[in-house]
């Protein structure tokens, strides 16, 4: 479903990604872990071209998004993205945050878009918040709205960029619950995370990144209980 071949990314003279190879299958939940500065967020952001690709190829359902001729807006509507800092639109209500994409990108009218949005709000447990503005929500609620906003585009793939890192600890659980449900429904997910518990429980596979490459990848059980690469061992000994 996602195929990454020899992906390089540089910011000026600094090479952040140094040849990433990855295959992600449909319905797979892949967690990306690693120390900060390892390039894991940059890798994720290359998957929907929020970062321009310096060289290499990234295929999303067969479309090479490194190809300049590709209609990236169309590809992005198939790839949802959830950010660390939520990035809700503060001048629009919760419901309007969710319906904007379906209305402007998919050409739905307001009623149709709300018919899509309201069940999603229920799914993330925030039906009663449809008409409030994001500023009155807690961090965890904001992130759940952000997930609903992405889901409204009916994406085939969901990308999560440290979705719980900006949350108070007691709010993390609700967001992870929503993500678990998504995984159960068979959503293809790539999750950059520091939540090792989530990676262990929900992940089908874990990628350990360091210094701009994937150092090790394996099932969660193998990575966490029996890491092979010394860098992985060192990292896990610090965080676990």
């Amino acid at each position, binding site marked *: 479903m996602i195929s990454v071949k020899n992906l390089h990314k540089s910011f000026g003279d600094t090479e952040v990604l140094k040849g990433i190879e990855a295959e992600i299958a449909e319905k797979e939940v892949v967690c990306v872990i690693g120390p900060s500065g390892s390039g894991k967020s940059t890798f994720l952001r290359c998957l929907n071209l*929020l970062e321009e690709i310096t060289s290499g190829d990234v295929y999303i359902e067969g479309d090479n998004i490194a190809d300049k001729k590709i209609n990236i807006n169309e590809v*992005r*509507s198939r790839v949802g993205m959830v*950010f660390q800092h939520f*990035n809700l639109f503060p*001048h629009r209500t919760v419901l309007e945050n969710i319906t904007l*994409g379906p209305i402007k*990108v998919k050409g739905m009218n307001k009623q149709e878009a709300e018919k899509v949005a309201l069940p999603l709000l229920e799914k993330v447990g925030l039906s009663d918040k449809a008409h409030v503005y994001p500023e009155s929500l807690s961090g965890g609620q904001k992130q759940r709205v952000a997930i609903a*906003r992405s889901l409204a585009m009916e994406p085939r793939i969901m990308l999560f960029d440290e979705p719980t890192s900006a949350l108070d600890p007691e709010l993390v659980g609700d967001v992870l619950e929503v993500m678990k449900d998504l995984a159960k429904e068979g959503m293809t997910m790539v999750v950059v995370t520091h939540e090792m518990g989530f990676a262990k429980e929900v992940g089908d596979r874990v990628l350990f990144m360091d210094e701009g490459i994937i150092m090790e990848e394996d099932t969660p059980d193998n990575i966490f209980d029996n890491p092979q690469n010394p860098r992985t061992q060192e990292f896990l000994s610090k965080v676990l």
Partner: protein
Amino acid sequence: MEFITESHYYRVMPFLLEGLVWTLLITVVGLIIGFILGAIFGFARLSHNKIIYGIATVYVEAVRGTPILAQILFIYFGLSDLTGINIDKISASIIAIAINAGAYIAEIVRGAVYSIDKGQMEAGRSVGLTRNQTMRYIIWPQAFRRMIPPLGNQFVISLKDTSLFSVIAVTELLYMGQQYYGSTFAAFEALTMVCLMYLLITVPTAVYLRRVERRLDV
């Protein structure tokens, strides 16, 4: 009552009211055009295209680096000298306000758009909106709110700047006051009333802006 109706404070008013109408007309029309110029050049200043950015920067710096008095004389006398076409004083004044305020508004627009968190553009794009759609539905509405206080400020500045057009005998507020004391020698009374007329517009504007600012703060 006669001492009131006979006083210069009273008798200058018909002049000043006529002047105020022209002052407001020049300011408002000039600022509407100035806002359009400011929006265009403000976005040009955010452009990654070096030529577009360069042109906008030259415009902004040239206007901000020269006095508006020189600008109005340049537009009214300089350009007609060069082209042989005479433009009327009111049009020249409106053009001067538009070009002058346009440069300052360009910086207001640029600053406001730039101040919106980058994540907003990313969130819009990752939903599948184009760059232009994100600008229009996400960035611009938020940036515009932040522009209201500085735009109000610019209104006050431009309103006062119109007084400089008295040098080309535009019948704006200050010029009409001068006309009155030119024939009556009642300079104190006339200029007192002129200043009060400016304050009549600028003080309520400032009060209103402070209220808007406070509301935007929370």
